[in-house]
C-alpha cells in the first residue's frame, strides 16, 4: 500500500545501491562485501595505504549525531580509497535553523556529493534520504547508514561478521551471545540480521527484561535473562555498550548491580567455550559491561575489530560507488 514497501537499498538488478540495513540483505551480497574486505585489510600493511578506486569522488560524512570514532573510521576508509572527504557535524544546528534533513541533502547533492555517510539519532533517517534520492532521479548518489537511532548500524554489523568469520571460519555451527542493552542497540539489530542470513543456528540475546525488545524472538533469537545460562557454551560473546543515560532510572538501578549481573568477568567467560572470542563495538565502559581482565585478555578481539572495520567500510564504499545506476 505504501511507496516504501520495497527496500530502497537494492537496485532493480539486486545490486547494492545504498547500504541501509542488513535486514533482508541477501547472503550473497553480505559474503561479497566480506570477501572484498579481505584484500582491503592487506592494504593497511603496505607502504602506501591507498588505492585509487574512488579518486575524484566526494564522500560527505553527514553526522546529525556526533560520533568521532565512527566518523574517523569512515574518513580513513574513504581516504584509503583516494576519495575526497568532507566532514559535516550537523548536530542540532541545522534543524534549529528550520532546515529539514532533505533540504540539507538537496544542498549537498548540488555540491556533487557521490556518497553520503549518514549518522542520525532517528531510526529510518538514511532510508528517508535514500528514498528521496531515488525518487528525485539522483540514484547515482549513494547512502551508507553509519547508525540510525536504535535501528541499524550495518557497517558495524559487517565488521562483526568479518571478525567472527576471521576467527571461526564458518557460521553454520556457531553459538553467538549478544549481551546487554539490546533494546536500544542498533549494533545488536544489525548483527542479528547478518548472523541469521548467514545461517548461524544459535543466536542469543542476554539482558534483563527491561532491556529486551518486545517480540525480539521473531527476529530469530533466543532470549536469556540470566548471564550464566546465556553465555554457556558460546563460541562468540558480543558485549554491548551501556549508554550513560540508561545506567540509572527505571531500566536499571545502578552500574554496580548491572556489572554484577551482566558484566563480562573472567568467571562468566569461563562458562563459554574455551576458544570463545570476546567482541565489543566500543567505546567500552570498563567495569560496567566488561571487566578489564577480559577486555585486555587473550580472548578479546576488540582491537582487531577496529582494524577490520576500516577494510569493511572500504569494501562497502567501493562496491556501492562502483554501482553507478542510471544517470539522469
Amino acid at each position, binding site marked *: 500500500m505504501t511507496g516504501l514497501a520495497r527496500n530502497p537499498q537494492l537496485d532493480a538488478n539486486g*545490486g547494492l545501491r545504498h547500504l541501509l540495513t542488513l535486514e533482508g540483505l541477501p547472503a550473497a551480497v553480505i559474503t*561479497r562485501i566480506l*570477501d*572484498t574486505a*579481505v*584484500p*582491503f*585489510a*592487506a*592494504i593497511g600493511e*603496505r*607502504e*602506501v595505504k*591507498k*588505492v*585509487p*578506486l574512488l579518486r575524484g569522488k566526494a564522500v560527505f560524512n553527514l553526522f546529525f549525531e556526533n560520533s568521532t570514532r565512527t566518523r574517523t573510521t569512515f574518513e580513513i576508509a574513504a581516504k584509503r580509497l583516494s576519495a575526497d572527504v568532507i566532514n559535516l557535524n550537523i548536530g542540532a544546528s541545522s534543524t534549529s535553523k528550520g532546515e529539514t534533513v532533505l533540504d540539507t541533502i538537496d544542498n549537498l547533492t548540488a555540491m556533487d556529493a557521490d556518497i553520503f555517510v549518514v549518522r542520525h539519532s532517528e531510526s529510518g533517517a538514511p532510508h528517508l534520504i535514500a528514498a528521496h534520492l531515488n525518487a528525485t532521479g539522483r540514484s547515482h548518489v549513494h547512502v551508507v547508514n553509519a547508525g540510525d537511532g536504535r535501528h541499524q548500524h550495518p557497517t558495524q554489523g559487517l565488521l562483526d561478521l568479518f571478525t567472527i568469520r576471521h576467527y571461526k571460519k564458518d557460521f553454520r555451527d556457531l553459538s553467538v551471545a549478544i549481551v546487554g542493552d539490546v533494546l536500544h542497540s542498533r549494533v545488536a539489530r544489525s548483527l542479528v540480521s547478518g548472523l541469521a542470513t548467514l545461517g548461524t543456528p544459535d543466536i542469543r540475546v542476554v539482558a534483563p527484561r527491561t532491556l529486551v525488545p518486545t517480540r525480539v524472538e521473531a527476529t530469530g533469537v533466543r532470549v536469556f535473562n540470566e548471564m550464566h545460562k546465556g553465555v554457556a557454551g558460546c563460541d562468540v560473546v558480543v558485549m554491548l555498550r551501556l549508554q550513560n543515560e540508561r545506567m540509572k532510572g527505571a531500566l536499571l538501578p545502578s552500574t554496580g548491580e548491572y556489572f554484577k549481573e551482566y558484566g563480562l568477568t573472567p568467571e562468566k567467560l569461563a562458562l563459554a567455550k574455551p576458544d570463545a572470542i570476546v567482541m565489543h563495538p566500543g567505546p567500552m565502559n570498563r567495569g560496567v559491561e566488561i571487566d578489564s581482565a577480559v577486555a585486555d585478555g587473550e580472548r578479546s578481539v576488540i582491537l582487531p575489530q577496529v582494524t577490520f572495520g576500516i577494510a569493511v567500510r572500504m569494501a562497502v564504499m*567501493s*562496491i556501492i560507488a*562502483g*554501482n*553507478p545506476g542510471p544517470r539522469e
Partner: protein
Amino acid sequence: MTPGLPDAEGTLAALAERMRGGVAPDAAFVGIYSGGAWVADRLATMLGAGHRVGYLDVSFYRDDYERAGLKPNARRSALDFDVAGATIVLVDDVLYTGRSVRAAINELFDYGRPAAIELAVLIDRGGRELPVEATYVGARLSVARDLDIVLSRAADGTLALAAEPRVAR
C-alpha cells in the same frame, strides 16, 4: 584446446627458454591474478633459480571501475619481499590492451620503488591501447576482437589455452 591456438605447455617452455639467462638472478616474479599467477609459479619452478614469487590482484587499480564497478572475487595481493630496490618481472598470461599491466605497475609502486620492472607474457595478442611492451613473450597471435584468450589450469597444474566469445562487462 581450441584449434588454431598454440599448446600452452609448449609455449610456456619456450617462454622459460627465452627468459633463462636474460632474467637477473635476484629478480622476483610477480604474477597478475589469476592466469599470471599460475604462469609465474610455473616459470619459477622451470627456471629453478630460486626466484621469489609474489601475486597481485589489480582489481583496486583497474581503469574500468567507473564503468563496470568493482570486480567480484577480488583477492589479496601478496608480495612477501621488499619491493623497494627490487628487480621485478611482472608475469601475465595474455597481453592485450596493456591496461592490466598499467594497473599492476601502479600497484607495485604503492609497495615501494622497484629498481627495474620487466614483463613476461605467455601470449601477446596485439591490440595495445597503451604503450606497453613485453620483455619476454611465449608466442604472438592474432585473434579476432570478439574473442577472449583464456588460460585454465588442471588439477595437476597443467595449463591450457582456449578462445571464448568476449563477455560484455
